[in-house]
């Protein structure tokens, strides 16, 4: 009996190590590709060629869709940041998804919005909104009030109401840098192929100073949870996504700041309601639809348009967020499982989807199990020292290498953190987040996977405190 248990655990440990090895090799490949593409992009972006688009007649109008649910603390700042965007023609459509707090009242009073009954044509099937608000003095801003139905429904309502050929999804707790939309549309206009998705970078705004809807001072947040997330976001957006982008296998674009081609999204049926991460699902659906209809298209990720968003400040909120993300990822992967290893879908089907399904998705459970079992086995004498050392090296040592590498890449390219002290703190957290934080998030992600298989597939809302205390002057005054 003892021999059998040892045998099983031994092979389980081999699976854990293999998982860590494959994951880290993949990340290393992505890191190398990202290093190349991000630094190259930064070099050219320093010439600010995108500024030519600001006064160009060929720059298409863009609708900024802001679904908001109980966001009274930050919504005014977000809308102010959108109004001050440097872009020739834009619509800002805030969709109040049945908030029970003062989200709508904040907007109505701050921007002197008036109630109206406007025409609504549902190209993507949705129920009719309850009310529309608009101020003719701010022609680009609209507020739509709907019954609570989820983010995807709110986005579909926004798509139906928008008139622009492109729309950009923006989270209601986010602040977009002034030139970010120009930077986001630049790759769409500069490439001959039809670019249906252009994703940007999301950064953590906790700790930053905000004035009239603009980030005026980039600083690190105070708590270890937030700081660890800062490093994690830098790693994800500078090492992960640019790598997939270079391989033409973009599978995830953050819904907090993502530009999409409206006609393609409508043709693909809009945002789906059957997952809790509508942004990942929308990308997968678009890939599937466009490939099935043999359309030439591309999706891009650009590493310099930055959107600052509020990150969870407590472990509880972080757990909710990560469980939801993981649940959504698994739902999306299962929904689009026929794309797995299907050459018809190119690099997405052959590389990105398998990676996200087995390494990022199901792999979270393997990682969590390994994180628990290997140290226990070592303590019990079931794992020899070399194996345990290898595990530590792969799980922690290599993790620090990736995180530190991404902070260095940030320093080489975007350099948003002005103070040397902040960068050194980030480097320290690039080491520290691998001890404790990463394991915690792994457990939360594993919970998300388990929730999926247990059938608990509901949206876990994360409370927002607002990036900063709004002290802006109301528009009406």
């Amino acid at each position, binding site marked *: 009996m*003892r*021999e059998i*248990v*040892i*045998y099983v655990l*031994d*092979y389980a*440990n*081999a699976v854990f190590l293999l998982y860590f090895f494959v994951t880290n090799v993949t990340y290393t490949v992505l890191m190398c590709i990202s290093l190349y593409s991000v630094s*190259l992009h930064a*070099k*050219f972006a320093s*010439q600010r*060629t995108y500024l*030519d*688009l600001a006064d*160009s*007649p*060929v720059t298409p109008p863009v609708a900024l869709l802001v679904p908001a649910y109980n966001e009274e603390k930050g919504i005014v700042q977000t809308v102010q940041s959108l109004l001050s965007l440097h872009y020739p023609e834009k619509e800002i459509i805030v969709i109040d998804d049945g908030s029970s707090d003062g989200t709508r009242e904040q907007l109505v009073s701050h921007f002197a919005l*008036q*109630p*109206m*009954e*406007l*025409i609504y*044509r549902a190209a993507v099937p949705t129920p009719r909104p309850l*009310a529309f608000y*608009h101020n*003719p*003095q701010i*022609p680009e801003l609209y507020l739509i009030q709907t019954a609570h139905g989820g983010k995807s429904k709110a986005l579909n309502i926004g798509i139906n109401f928008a008139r622009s050929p492109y729309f950009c999804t923006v989270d209601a707790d986010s602040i977009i840098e002034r030139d970010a939309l120009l930077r986001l549309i630049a790759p769409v*206009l*500069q*490439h*001959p192929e039809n670019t249906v998705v252009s994703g940007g970078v999301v950064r953590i705004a906790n700790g930053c100073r905000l004035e009239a809807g603009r980030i005026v001072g980039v600083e690190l947040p105070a708590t270890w949870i937030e700081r660890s997330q800062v490093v994690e976001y830098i790693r994800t957006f500078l090492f992960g996504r640019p790598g997939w982008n270079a391989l033409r296998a973009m599978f995830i674009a953050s819904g907090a700041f993502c530009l999409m081609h409206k006609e393609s999204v409508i043709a693909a049926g809009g945002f789906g309601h059957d997952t809790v991460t509508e942004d990942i699902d929308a990308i997968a659906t678009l890939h599937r639809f466009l490939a099935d209809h043999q359309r030439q298209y591309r999706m891009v990720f650009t590493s310099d348009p930055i959107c600052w968003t509020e990150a969870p400040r407590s472990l509880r909120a972080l757990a909710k967020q990560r469980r939801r993300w993981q649940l959504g990822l698994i739902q999306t992967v299962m929904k689009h499982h026929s794309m797995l290893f299907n050459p018809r879908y190119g690099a997405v089907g052959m590389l990105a989807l398998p990676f996200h399904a087995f390494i990022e998705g199901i792999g979270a459970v393997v990682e969590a199990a390994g994180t628990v079992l290997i140290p226990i086995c070592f*303590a*019990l*004498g*079931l794992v*020899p*020292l*070399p*194996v345990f*050392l*290898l595990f530590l*090296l792969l799980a922690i*040592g290599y993790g*620090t*290498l990736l995180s*530190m*590498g991404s*902070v*260095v890449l940030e*320093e*080489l390219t975007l350099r948003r953190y002005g103070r*040397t002290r902040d*960068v*050194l703190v980030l*480097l320290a957290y690039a*080491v520290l987040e691998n001890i404790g934080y990463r394991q915690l998030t792994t457990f939360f992600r594993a919970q998300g996977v388990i929730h999926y298989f247990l059938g608990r597939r509901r949206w876990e809302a994360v409370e927002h405190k607002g990036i900063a205390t709004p002290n802006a002057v109301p528009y009406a005054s």
Partner: protein
Amino acid sequence: MVLRRWFDRAKWNWRVSVFYFKHLVAIALWLSVVVVAIDGSFVVYVIWRRIWRKRYYAKKDLARGRFAPVVDRYAAGDLSVEKALALLECCRRRPEREALQELLLAAIAKDNVTRLTDLLVQLRYVSAWAMHVFGRRRAAELLDHVCRGVPLPPRRRRYGWPAAVRNLRVVAVRRAIAARYFTYLSDDFVRVLASEALHDGSSEVRRVSIQALGRSRFEHSLTFLLAELRDAIVGRSAISIRTVRNSVARYTVSDLGEFLPFLADTEPRVRFAMVDAIREIFAQSGNPPLAGAEVSADLRRALMSLCEDGSPDVRARAAGVVASFQDTATVAALRKLLEDDNQFVRLHAIRAASRPCYRELLPHILRLVTDKSWRVREAAVHSLAGLGSEGLERLAEVFLSTSDRYAAEQIADELQRSGALAQMAKAMVGREVEVVRQLGAKMVALERTAALAHILLTAESQPLRVVLLDVLAGVPTPSQPTLSALERITQQEGDPLQGRSRAVLATRAAAAGGRA
């Protein structure tokens, strides 16, 4: 502990283990050392880079402070090239050279571009950029050609790295950045250098050169750009259509003659792109009325003939272009386009005809308010609202008289969005109370009461508020905004409508109680 005893550490069975590697410990330890060493080097690198950048920018700021007065004086024409060179030639180190380059490029304006280009040439900036893009030998030939008028030899095969390597993005990006600087130079340089860069194997460099040519608007490059646009449309170019269109649209009305051969292209998409680019050029210049001298008779004929093109896209875009001619022939052409079978042609014709000078087309646009296509209805209503008081009055007439619900809804939509409803009501209430009442009644009939309730709450004119209250009181099932507005009025002490509003609410409550 029970488990621990059960598993007995001493009896670990290495023979069944999949991890039976002799040197695994050593490998793991060495890898750990490597990881720690790399992490350490990252920290050192970041600190070193911060210190280096700090020093570098301090030197650059210093240089900027030293050279800025010289550059300003030179740009203003107060210094000769020789004197400026004597003062600036001491700048040799990288931060100084970069600071000076930035100062010189920032100082370039229309009136001093030739002088500053001259100085950039003398300070060997232009030759450095040209060398990056074209290589040493070709750069020398090109600069000799521009500066000394030496005939330009034909392009030869370039030696050095193979084209496949040279065209890699990582290699080409440096050339593209250098090519971008050509944009700032005087016309002679842009024409030769940017045109030459258009033959680069990298699409990145070609894109930058196209942008440079567009920004400099050099007349002789337009034909080249239009040919590039045609290539992009038919898929023979790696440059996007929008990039080329962006450059083409920067030209002016006086350059339009170059378009003539392309307007007769056999490919409808090319004709569409060309006429659309002309439309953008007109739009950029504020859609001025064009006299005969500004557009040649041939071009005018060609553009007018596009109004009868076989492709609806071309006809649609041609409407916006011919509208600038503003003569009787144009009126006839626009009238025909307003009656076109294709909805997009009608839509663009409406936008083109919505200018005060085309007053005689107003009845045609009004007719399109009841068009079967919602896009056309929307464009017609929007255009009429944009025509000012006359357009609004005509809209109000249609609004009150039409039995077409879709048209009425479209007008109600526009009146609310543009804020014209409140303006009209305020303007009319003094003289045409009955019209305001009818407008309100029509809005109520269309179930558009929220905007009326808002005006009722915020308007200063008491007669207007009385009319609106009367109208809203007659609504069989008042909407939430209406009820909220009435409740707020009842709560406002001293509001002249307080009593009336209270009575309306009481009637409503009684009616609701009765129904219950």
